């Protein structure tokens, strides 16, 4: 036991904060992420995290809270994606790439100005790759509030969101404001990305957004199950990552330890790869037991499969 949980793990205050923030952001990312994957918006979701990077680095330069910077950047990025639209995939991906590139270029500038302006070192590392152990505990309520906000949005629009992923016409025919749903979802994405940028850094928050979601969708057949499994995977990988990072202080001679984000991302990647293993696939595809929930599952499964 002592080998797994190095001394002081449970009593260490930053660790406790990290566990809370990590769990909450993982859940939000997982939930939002499932819809991102269903809507095949993985590239756009990733681009959003890079624009969030710009926001975070700009905020840092101007002395503002990086969290708000990340979220602000995310919202601007979401607006840009919305402007780009969903016309032809080729042109959309190209435009997304250009926006992404410009955002990162600006981030480069801000980070450079950071390093020349002040004595703050490690800005690049913290913003891009996470600083979950150094988060100010007083931000925890803000994090919890924002998480609840993002989750509330998703809960509110979950049905039209799913429907619009299947068919834009169907959604419009039902009188649902397609654009409104899209905008709301983008806001939820921006908040989610902003939160996970604190935990694992903006560059890597894609992993929390897409990884658990993509893995869980390979393992489950209904939307509800996907959401739950994604949440569980997200929290599990985050907590394990925090644990390993803490332990790595003791493993690695430089006593700096390896970054938390490295462990979290690696675990997510491994989880995703494992979800594709043959024996796992066979277990997933086993014949279903007859149950009354079959009908609703059917619709959700079609939603999941149609979202490729």
């Amino acid at each position, binding site marked *: 036991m002592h080998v797994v949980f190095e001394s002081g793990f449970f009593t260490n205050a930053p660790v406790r904060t990290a566990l809370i923030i990590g769990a909450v952001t993982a859940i939000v990312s997982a939930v939002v992420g499932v819809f991102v*994957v269903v809507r*095949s918006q*993985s*590239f756009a*979701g*990733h681009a959003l995290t890079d624009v969030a990077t710009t926001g975070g680095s700009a905020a840092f330069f101007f002395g503002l809270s990086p969290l708000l910077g990340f979220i602000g950047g995310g919202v601007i990025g979401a607006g840009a994606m919305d402007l780009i639209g969903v016309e032809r*995939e*080729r042109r959309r*991906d*190209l435009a*997304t*790439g*250009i*926006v*992404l*590139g*410009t955002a*990162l*270029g*600006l981030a*480069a*500038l801000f*980070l*450079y100005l950071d*390093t020349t302006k002040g004595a703050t*070192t*490690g800005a*690049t*590392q913290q913003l*891009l*790759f996470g600083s979950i152990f150094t988060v100010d505990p007083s931000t925890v309520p803000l994090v919890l509030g924002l998480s609840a906000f993002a989750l509330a949005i998703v809960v509110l629009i979950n049905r039209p969101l799913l429907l619009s992923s299947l068919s834009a016409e169907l959604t419009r025919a039902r009188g649902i404001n397609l654009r409104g749903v899209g905008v709301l979802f983008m806001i939820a994405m921006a908040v989610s990305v902003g939160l996970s940028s604190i935990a694992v850094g903006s*560059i*890597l928050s*894609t*992993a929390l957004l*897409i*990884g658990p*979601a*993509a893995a869980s969708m*390979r393992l489950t057949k209904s939307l509800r199950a996907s959401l739950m499994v994604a949440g569980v995977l997200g929290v599990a990988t985050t907590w394990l990552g925090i644990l390993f990072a803490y332990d790595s202080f003791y493993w*690695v001679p*430089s006593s*700096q*330890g*390896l*970054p938390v*984000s*490295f462990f979290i*991302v*690696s675990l*997510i*990647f491994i989880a*995703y790869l494992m979800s*594709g293993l043959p024996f796992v696939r066979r277990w997933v595809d086993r014949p279903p037991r007859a149950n009354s929930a079959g009908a609703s599952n059917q619709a959700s499964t079609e939603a999941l499969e149609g979202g*490729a």
Partner: protein
Amino acid sequence: MFSGFMVNAWEVGTMVAIVGGVVGFFVVLRGSAFPAHAIPNGAFAGAAGANLLAINPLIGLGVFSFGAALGIGALSRRGRSDAVTALALVMMLALGAAFLSLSTQYEPQIFSLLFGEILGVSASEILPVVALGAVCIIAVALLYRPLLLTSIAPDIAAARGLRPQRFEIAFLIVIACATTMTVPVVGALLIFTLMLGPSAAAQCFTNRAGRAMAGSVAIALVTIWLALACAYESNWPVGFYVSVFSASSYGIGRGYAAWHTRRQVRATRESLRSAALTN
């Protein structure tokens, strides 16, 4: 700005632009924006690893770019290719961050690997870089026509015995090769903009493939030269200027295309109107 160590930068920068333009032509044609973004992130991890092992960073860049290209090629056959590419991309970045954290020069190394460094290529490395660039260009020249057909009409190509999957892998490897030589100067996170903006802009100005490729190279050259000059004067990162100028060229290209279309529509309307009047 044109003497001493900067000569190095100009030489390498020119090569980077030519390769970026040539390879970028096909990146835009095939809609491979995402892999073009993802493979360099693999390069980042490789360079970081090489730094840790105190070997030539070009080797690390090369090996990991190659691996990332093959990995994306293999993984994208099964499962949703977008999600997989995103995860592989991020995994590489995390790996790179981990490697760097184990070395002593964490901060400045991260920055220059991610965002570029005018002097990213030392004098002793010019030859391998130029050689790699030549390999890229020769590869594209050899594959030019089959690659054109498989990119535009894969079904027809398949019927002719040109297997699209093979060419996809081959092209990803070319991207990996181009990445290896371009990342040190422009940065892993930003090199793909050089492959996107200028090529996308060039394709707005002409209908012909050959001219579009020449245009890609020309615009990429202007982009790099301007970026190097500005970075030298202001000390701001090269990658920043590359991304901004690439985006600008894309904007100019799109603007021209829109103006051109409007002009054509107006001309058609005029001719229809005058035809109706004379009848």
